[in-house]
Structure formats: structure tokens, C-alpha cells
């Protein structure tokens, strides 16, 4: 495993540039009162016992360790910006079933990470998969990001802790209008959401996006999204049903001449080979690797 200094340098830069974490909560940090107040402010009045809240915070440390080890195994090293984003966000705040209006906070930071249904056909992906996706986006502090398919809002929240501005569109009105209210109470003031058709992207944002994430059911990528991708930007499309353990990621980039390339990232299922240890069986008769 080769540790380069690049992620450490970038991490240091990110630490200087990252927006203040949960500043709206005040100096007290993330307490049960803060949680309940934020839930109320987001239109999701609820109750939670003090022991349950404490248990969640206790599990969070283990979960963060798990995420770090997972990312290190797959990428060589965990991106410090991604780790800081996870640390800054209270995942229990996002465990809410919008259709049943039921609180799932007790499920947060489970030791066996799994996806959770949120109602309206949406799911909160398992936190390891979300960590992978976030690091695969290669987000940087000055970036502008767009997400089509807000869902739980957790992915948008994660990226918003790293990039300068995060935009998110949800096509299902009842879900999108409810989730649109959850960012401000947490102090995530660089997130802008809307409900509607994501096919045309967000043309009002001049200059386009460095990162675009879209959940795509169609056979083709909406051309407006390709067009709104900045040169050097990454368009990430997770493929696979939402309850699988992780998904294939198709990552699209544009050449200088405008032609689009795609990479299929299978890192969630297959650990990258390290050094000379090639234990992938070759098809019989195949020549040397190209």
C-alpha cells in the first residue's frame, strides 16, 4: 500500500477551506436537544430518549473507524475530507421514513451497514457504499456539485461538507419538498434543492459542475448533464438496485475535444489489486495484459 502525500496535503487545504461545521448549533455541539430542535425545525417533530441518543453517538466512533478501514482497503487511503464530512454529519438525522413519518434514528451507525427504506420508493444507502461513492467523486474544496435524486439528502449533505456549493434535484414531489427542509436546521447553508425534472440539469448555474451524480433508469445519460459537466469534471452514475450491498459506478469524463469516456468502477465488489499479487484467473489462451 503506497501512501502518497497528496491526500494529506489536500486534506490540510480542505481543513482551511471547509465551511464551519454545524455552526448553527452553537458551541454546545451535537446534543439531544440540538437533535430534537433540528428535527422540529425540519418539520419532522419526534422524540428520542437520552440513552438511545447516547448509544447512537457511541456507535458513531466505531462506524467511522469502519469507514476509514473500508476506504483505505479500496482506495489505498481514506480521503480526510470524506472522513471529516462523515464526522461532521449526524447520520441519525437522516434516518426518517417520509411516507410513514417514522423515526429510524435508532438504526443509525449500525454495525452491519445496510440500506434503509425511506418511503416513496427511496432508500438511504448503507454508509460504506456512500463513503465509497463520495471518495470516488474526488471532491475538492472549490468544486460545485449537482445531484439528481436527492433521496435521503445524506449524499448531498456529505458532499456539501467538502465542496463550495451543492445542488440537488428530486423528482418525487412529496419526498423532495420534505427533504428540502432538512439542510438549513443543520447549518448546511451551501445546499440548494429543488423538486422537478432533472433531465435538463440545473442550467441556471453558470459555468457548470465539477461533480454530477445521477441515478439513471434510462439507457442513456441526459445530454444536458454532459453539457453542464465542466472540463475535468466527473459524472457519476450508480447502477444497480438500491438494496444491494454497494453498486457499480459508471464515471463519465470529457476529453478536450468534447468526446466522452466512461470508466466502470467495480471497487465496491472487487478490491483493487496491489503490487504483483494477480490472483484474478485469466481466460485460457489470453495474451499478456494490454
Amino acid at each position, binding site marked *: 500500500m503506497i501512501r502518497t502525500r497528496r491526500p494529506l496535503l489536500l486534506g490540510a487545504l480542505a481543513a482551511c477551506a471547509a465551511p464551519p461545521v454545524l455552526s448553527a448549533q452553537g458551541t454546545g455541539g451535537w446534543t439531544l436537544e440540538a437533535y430534537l430542535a433540528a428535527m422540529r425545525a425540519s418539520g419532522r417533530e419526534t422524540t428520542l430518549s437520552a440513552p438511545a441518543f447516547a448509544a447512537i453517538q457511541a456507535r458513531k466512533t466505531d462506524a467511522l473507524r469502519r469507514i476509514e478501514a473500508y476506504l483505505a482497503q479500496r482506495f489505498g487511503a481514506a480521503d480526510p475530507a470524506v472522513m471529516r464530512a462523515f464526522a461532521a454529519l449526524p447520520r441519525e438525522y437522516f434516518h426518517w421514513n417520509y*411516507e410513514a413519518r417514522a423515526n429510524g434514528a435508532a438504526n443509525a451507525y449500525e454495525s*452491519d*451497514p*445496510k*440500506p434503509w*427504506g425511506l*418511503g416513496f*420508493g427511496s432508500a438511504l444507502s448503507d454508509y460504506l457504499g456512500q463513503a465509497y461513492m463520495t471518495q470516488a467523486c474526488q471532491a475538492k474544496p472549490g468544486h460545485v456539485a449537482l445531484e439528481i435524486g436527492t433521496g435521503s439528502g445524506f449524499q448531498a449533505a456529505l458532499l456539501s461538507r467538502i465542496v463550495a456549493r451543492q445542488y440537488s434535484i428530486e*423528482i*418525487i*414531489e*412529496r419526498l423532495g419538498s420534505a427533504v428540502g427542509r432538512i439542510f438549513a436546521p443543520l447549518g448546511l447553508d451551501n445546499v440548494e434543492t429543488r*423538486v*422537478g*425534472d432533472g*433531465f435538463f440539469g440545473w442550467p441556471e448555474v453558470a459555468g457548470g459542475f465539477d461533480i454530477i451524480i445521477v441515478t439513471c*433508469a434510462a*439507457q*442513456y*445519460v*441526459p*445530454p*444536458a448533464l*454532459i*453539457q453542464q459537466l465542466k472540463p475535468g469534471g466527473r459524472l457519476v452514475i450508480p*447502477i*444497480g*438496485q*438500491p*438494496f*444491494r*450491498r454497494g453498486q*457499480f459506478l459508471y464515471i*463519465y469524463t470529457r476529453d478536450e475535444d*468534447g*468526446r*466522452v*469516456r*466512461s*470508466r*466502470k468502477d*467495480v*471497487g465496491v*465488489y*472487487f*478490491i*483493487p*489489486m496491489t503490487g504483483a*499479487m*494477480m*490472483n*484474478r*484467473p485469466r*481466460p*485460457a*489462451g*489470453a*495474451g499478456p*495484459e*494490454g
Partner: protein
Amino acid sequence: MASLVPLFLIAGAAVGVEIALTRFFAVASWSEYGYWVISIAMTGFAVSGVVMVLGRGAFLRHARWLLPALPIAMLAVGGAGWIGTTLNGFNTLELQNPATAQAQLANIALYYAALFPFFVLAGLAVSLNFLVHAGQVGRVYGYDLLGAGTGAVLALALMFVLHPFALVPALLPLLAVAAMLAGGARWRVGALAVLAATEAAVLAFAAPRVSEFKPIYAPLNVQDSRVVAERLSPRGVYLLLDNFTERLDTDVSNNAGAMGLPPPPRAYGLYRDGARIAALPMAAPEAAHAPAALDAAAYALLGAPRVLLLGGAGGFRAAEAFALGARQVTIVEPEPLLQEALSRGFGPSPPLAADARLRLSAAHPLRVEGRFDLVDIAGDFLGADEQNRTAYTAEALAGFLARLEPGGLLSVPIGIRELPVHAVRLLATAREALRLAGVAEPERHVAVIRSAWNLRVLVARDPFTAAQVDRLLAFAEERSFDLSYAPGLPAEGREVWNDLPPVSLEATTVDQRGAAQDAVAREAALVLAGTPPSDAFDRSPVTADRPFLSPLVRLPWLGAALKRIEVLPQQEIGLLVNVAVLAQAALLALAVALLPLLARPALRVRLPVLGRALVYFPALGLGFLLVEIAFIEHAALLLGDRSSGFALVLTAMLVFSGLGAMWAGRVRAPGRALLMAVLVALGSAGLVLVGVRGAVLAALDWPWALRAALLVAALAPLSLALGFPFPLGLDRFRKEGAGLLPWAWALNGAFSVVATPLANLLGHGLGLSWLLAAGMACYAAVLFAWPKERP
């Protein structure tokens, strides 16, 4: 002589509810899980037989009030079971994740709990009738089978007028009538009261809904979404939607914007049972996007071709073909509603505009006539209809090749978004098709072009020239497509626009540090040379005897598949479900078979007779279903869809074997009758084995009624003969020991449960002819297990 009409009604209700439940699962969940219902039903019947074995005396003593009470109980339990089934929060997607699967297994157990009692009671009611009328086994069996057949027909008929969610409540009243006929005035009042209470409860509490994770959910729930047309049929519930997410869904290049071409146009979305099968045009179909599509690859090699389109995509395909330079287009659209949409329109979507260059053919894809420069299969063809996979067999592709003029091409699409190995299997099939067509060097007649998510295999009548390969390369480069294989192109070392790493079940690591890879390119050369890689995935050609693209995972690799289940696409999960059901069924069958050891005193039979019964009745249970399932597959192709194939085969087999059973009740020399029956069965099955493919092909263009008549004519003598062994056996073994009657019933039922998943595995894994052969072997075993005449 007590009436057997209640039995007729009970059998009808049981089968009707069974079929209604499979439709419920198809609409609310996914259809693969519908056949669990059949498994649950059979399990219920088997267990009822066990109960009857152990409690025979008690049941007979109380038969007078049990006969009307059982259908009333079925009514109440059926209603409650239906409510429980609709309220079950089963999410099949979670089965694919080991972390969430456990909870879903619990939900599956809840399905069993909800539906099991209904089928146990049904089995008890039927076998009680057998006990009470022990002297007329043939007549009883006949009423049972005829009732079942009628129930199937009734359920099918209702599917034309009722939504699947209303079917079960609509069938429950049959049970009330059965109770009223079986008992006196008090029972009549009771039956009506329970019926009223049950239907009221169903109305109040049952909440069937379409799973929120089916593709139709989001489009239905965006703003301003409207359902602009609806059609109910046994094939499925069709909905035509108008909302902002609906567009023609075809794979267009990501460079389309740079090429100055517009995206695919807005359209109506046509959904069947919650899955999208096509886009229908809102007005005259536009095709300005066509030059950017992967579909356009074949047209780049041809000038003004005469085109055969398989799959019309509501009229868009024809517009695309003309936009790409076709001079004449023939459309073959096997899906009946899509056919209707083309010829007459559907809802607000208009029909095909009249055009001298355009012809809508009514022929079946396997019976198309004429000569063409291009046979172009639509990208959504496989998804539009379950039977369309029969166009992907080597024999079918060879048939299309035979329709090509010199220089002609066949263009076959397949999705590679999840597993690229599907494409490799298609290549193996193409190679086999070329071999069947008499081509000496198949590798010179194939080109493979792909995007990130879809792939097209171009199969040429004449070898590809270097100029053609250059034109394909230029076409691909401009659109960021990849030419994974063409004769004369090096497999490695070329630029890859769309990285496609290999997905394997054995490896847990991947090398993605270097340049983009092309897993298809690597394997294409091997497959076309006839030396495919050998691993967990089955790359053998799809043939007419085994017309299935899935499962890809080979059975011996089941363990690896379970460990890496998250890597597999949803259709592969069906194989695993089959094996799980088979394991459970086999355990149950074993338990039932060993039951006499517990109940030996109750049965009072000699060991050799027990042994013979242990072969006779299981072989019957297995054999009947193996033959039935083989016929259902052939019928699905002959009639064009699985539901009518299933229904017609089921009804015909039940009715004719019912008649056979009644006849068997009147024979004077049972041993001889059995011999004749088995010989007739073996003879007809043998004929079918040899001649079915030719007969089905020849009949594909006949009117539906004639095809149905052919199917019934083929089934009648066979089913008539198959009706003999069970009643003859019941009667013969009953003379050895009265307690054998319910045990025989239980054995038959338990092994029927084993038969369904076994048949699926055999059919998909080995081929349909093996199914029929296995069925024949079972009936031969029956002959040998017939007890010798008593001295």
C-alpha cells in the same frame, strides 16, 4: 348418493385462488415469486394428506358436518390469508443483501403463514371427499380435476374484467356455494353470514399495492403524472403514462450534443405489471436522434436497405429506420398490445401513419417471409415480451440469416450494464447460428459494437471486408462507442472509450489501475474460435431446446453465487430461489415419505407394498408436473404468451385427466388398463418429443383458435392416459390397506411440490426435451411399481 358438486366448487376455488395469487405477486411484487404460491399451495395439499393419514378415523366419524364446515372455514381463512398477504411488507430487493435478507425471510414465512391454512383446508376438503366416497375413486378424482380445470378458466376469464387485486375476493363466494350445497338450512345461513363478514373484512383491511421499488412507482408519483390509458388482461395490467420522465428510451451516444443531435423525444410510457416495456409516440414519431444511436451501427454499412424490424417500439423504430436511410421497412411486433398500438393506436397514442414503404406484418418472428438487407432487432425487444427470447436462439438467428440478401446483416442487441457475460453468451449463440447456416469461418462474419451499457452483435452473411471494419471504427470513434470485435482488429492495445472490467464470481480483486479494459473484446475472440473460457458462467449457445438467456450461473457454482450474490443481476436470483424452494420441498417430501414409520399401526400394510407405494405415488406426482411444465413452455411459444399457455395446458390436462380418471373408475381389469394407459402416454410423449419443434413452428401462423385446438389435440390422448394411474393406484393400494389412501394423496402432493423447482432447474439447465424424457421415465417407473396381483 351425495353430490360431488361441492367438491367441484372447492377444487375450482382452490386453483382459481392459486392462479389469482400468482397474478397478485406479478403486479405487486415480481413474478418470479409468484410460483412460490404454487409451492405453498402444494405444500398445503401435502400436509393435509399427512393430517388425513393420522386422523382418518376421526375425520370419517365427523364427515357429516365437516363436509359443509370445511368450505366455510376455507372462506374465512382465505379472506384472512388474503388480507395478511396484502399487508405483508415483503421487499424482494432486500433478499440480495445478506445484511437485510434475514428480515425478508421472516416476511416470506409470513406469506406461508397467511396462505398455508387455506390450502391445507382445501386439501382436507378434497381428501375427505375421497374418503367418504371411497368406492368411487374415479368419479371423485374426475370431479376434483374438472373442478380445478373450470376454476382455472374462470380465473382467466375474470382477468379480462377485474384488476388482479380484486380476483381473490371475487373467487371466495364459490366456497360459500359449496358449503350451502353440502349442508342443510343452518349451514346455508352460516355460509352466507361468513361470506358477508369475510368480504366486509377484505374491503376494510386488505391493502394490496404495487411495490414502491418497481419501475412504475416514480413515474406515477411525479407532478402532473396522468394515466392516459389502461388495459386488463391475463398477460398483465397495462398502463399508459404521461409525465415528464417519459421519453423514448434508446442508447444514444454521449457525444450526441457535440454532434448537434437532439436527445430522444418525449413520449408516453407503456408499463405492464409495473415494468416499462415501451415508449409510445404522442404524435407522429420523431427520429432526429437516430444517427447518434447505437442502433444506427448496422445502417452505417448499408445503403438504402430493405429492413425487417423485430419490435416496433410503438412506431419509433420505423421512423428511425427511415431516418437512417432504409428504403423499405417491415415491422414484426409479437407483443399483442404493442401490435395493436401500431395498427390501431392505444389511448391517445396514434397508430402508424400510412406509408407506402412501410408494412406491418402479422407473422410470428420465427415465421417471417421475404428477403431483407438488414434484420434489426429492437433494443427493448427482449424486455417487451417474455417469449421474445425465442428469437435469440441459434436456430432462430440462423433462420434470419437465411432471409438475408448478399451483403445483408443481422443486428442483435443485448444489455451489458450489469453482467457483460450475457453478451458473450449471445456471441456463442451467433457462432452456432453461423455454423447452422453452413458458414466455415464464423469469426469473419461477426462484429461487436458497444456503448457503456448496451452492445450489438452484427452478424453478416458474407465476411466483413476491411472497408466495412474501417467504417464501423469511424462510426464508433465519433460516438465514443467501442468496436469490441471485428475480423482483422487486434483484441488488445486499441483505445477503449468505455471501460468494461471483467466481472467474475471467483475473483475478489480487480486491476483497474491501468488503461481502460474491454472484457468482451478479450473473450470474443475465444468464443468465436470455439474455445470459450470455462468458469462459473455458462457461455453455451441459447438453443430452441433451451431457449433461456438466464440463468448464467452454472449449478455447481451455486456456493460462489451465494457468496457473491450482490454482484449478480436480479434475473440470476431466480436460480437461487429455485434451489432454495427445491431444498425445502425435498425436505417436506422426505418427511412425508417417512411418515409410515410413525403411523405404521394406522396404515397396517406389508413392507413390499409400502415400498411399491413409495415409488408409485411420488413418480406420479413428479411425472405429471414434469410433463405439464414441459408442455407449458412449448405452449407459451405456440400461443405467444406464458399465461394463456399455462392456463390452456393446465385446463386441458386437468379436464382430460379428469375424464381419464372417471373412465378408470369403470374398468374391469385395472392392471391391464394401467399398462395400456402408460403405453399410450409413453407413445404420445415420445411423438411429442420428436415432433414438437416442427409442429410448433409450422403452426405459428395459424389463427389462435386453431393453435389452441392443436395444443388440446396433442394433450388430450396423453392427459386421458395420465388420468388412469392415480385412481387405479389408489383403488389397488386401498385393497392392501385403507390407510394408504390419504398417504398416497400426501405423497403425490409432496412430490408435486418438488417437481416445480426441479423442472425449472432441469429445463433451464439441460433443456425441455430432458423434462419430457424425465416425465416419461417417471411413468415407466409407475408401471413397474404396480403391485403384483394378490394370490
